[in-house]
């Protein structure tokens, strides 16, 4: 080639150097070109809670007055029927104690390996539809453990009172079952370490002598919470 200048020789030298550099870069470990980081992913699986409530769950359901000795046959009001309806004591006298046999059965199913709590409260006081007066539910309506059948309780068997809830109640008119929204749960009426359980309860009613005549009602609300 005639007349290759110094500048042309330098350019060629640079190009050759860049090519060598590129070739050298290809030999570098891949790690130098990549970066890694890690992050922790967590999630909570909400427990599943199923609750079924069956009133008047065994034949022979109904109210008996508190007597010593031979027990009378249970009776009930028109709104109670086998496996449903309300816990209807029917006609009772003020100042006397009545036991309602086979009042409710609770069946609880959860996927909680640590069990569950059951809360039971009155949505309101025992309310007289006839004149609008009330008597405290905590002095009037009680619950006590029962059995699937052959209930041994009598009207003198002691129960524990239902307390009036301090939660926020929605609904609760005579024909409308209420719901209760809790910010703090009360003391449970039952606890389980197992994921499932069945509970049987009798109810008792002791209307004070001072109560006015009329038709009274209260909704008892059961809440099951997985632990």
């Amino acid at each position, binding site marked *: 080639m005639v007349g290759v200048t110094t500048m042309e020789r330098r350019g060629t030298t640079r190009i050759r150097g860049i090519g060598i550099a590129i070739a050298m870069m290809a030999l570098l470990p891949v790690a130098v070109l990549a970066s890694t980081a890690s992050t922790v992913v967590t999630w909570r699986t909400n427990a599943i809670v199923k609750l079924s*409530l069956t009133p008047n769950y065994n034949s022979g359901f109904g109210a008996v007055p508190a007597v010593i000795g031979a027990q009378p046959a249970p009776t009930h009001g028109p709104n109670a029927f086998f496996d449903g309806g309300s*816990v209807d004591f029917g006609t009772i006298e003020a100042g006397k104690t009545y036991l309602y046999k086979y009042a409710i059965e609770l069946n609880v199913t959860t996927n909680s390996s640590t069990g569950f709590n059951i809360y039971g409260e009155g949505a309101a006081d025992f309310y007289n539809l006839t004149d609008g007066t009330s008597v405290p539910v905590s002095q009037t309506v009680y619950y006590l453990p029962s059995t699937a059948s052959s209930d041994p309780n009598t009207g003198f068997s002691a129960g524990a*009172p239902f307390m009036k809830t301090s939660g926020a109640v929605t609904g609760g008119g005579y024909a409308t079952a209420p719901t209760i929204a809790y910010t*703090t749960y009360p003391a449970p009426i039952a606890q389980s370490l197992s994921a499932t359980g069945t509970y049987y309860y009798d109810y008792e009613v002791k209307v004070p002598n001072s109560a006015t005549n009329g038709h009274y009602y209260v909704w008892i609300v059961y809440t099951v919470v997985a632990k």
Partner: protein
Amino acid sequence: MKRAGRTALLAAFLTLASIAVALALFVQQRDQIAVTIIVNVTPAPRMAAYAPTATTGSQIRAAFTLDTKRTIRAGALSLNNLVAQNQQAVRVEASVQPNPLGTLLVSNLNSVTINATAGTTVVVPCAYTITVNTTVTYWDLYDGLFADFAATFPGKDLANNTYLTSPLATATPFYVYSDDGGTWTSVETNGGTKTYCVDLTLSIPVSVSGGTYSTNAVYTLYY
């Protein structure tokens, strides 16, 4: 003579029969009420003692722990704290009519609640009152507990001091109907209308577990 003898015997028999009938009519159960006694038991405190170490010499450190009920905070405060729950309700109802016995035998309370710690004794002055409302000049009031609180919590751990104006010198343990041969015990004999205060003295065995226990104090009026 024979006829006169038979007549005398018949008269004597009729007289005795009348007396027997009169006595039976005189003493009868007239009314019966119950007051539910509810006891919320807190377990006895636990103590842990630590042996002295080389650095502490002969000092013994002790730590106390108390079992208390935990209040569980509910509600969806954040997505990470959703509480799984389910709810059902049942209506309880009754048609209330007057008691034909009126206020013959009444209590001012249907139930009494006592909060106490296992291993302690609690006195509740005038926990409730019992009133006999009658013009009958002689009646007999019986009392007793229907059953024990629990197998490990005898009803006789509950004593009563029943009085008109001033408490008696000592409280008397309740009879327990199911333990004491199915009997009640006479607590007062009197006449007319009277109202009694009932002080309760409860001694809870230290072995009783925490929880809620209940029984019924039953009052029966005879005349």
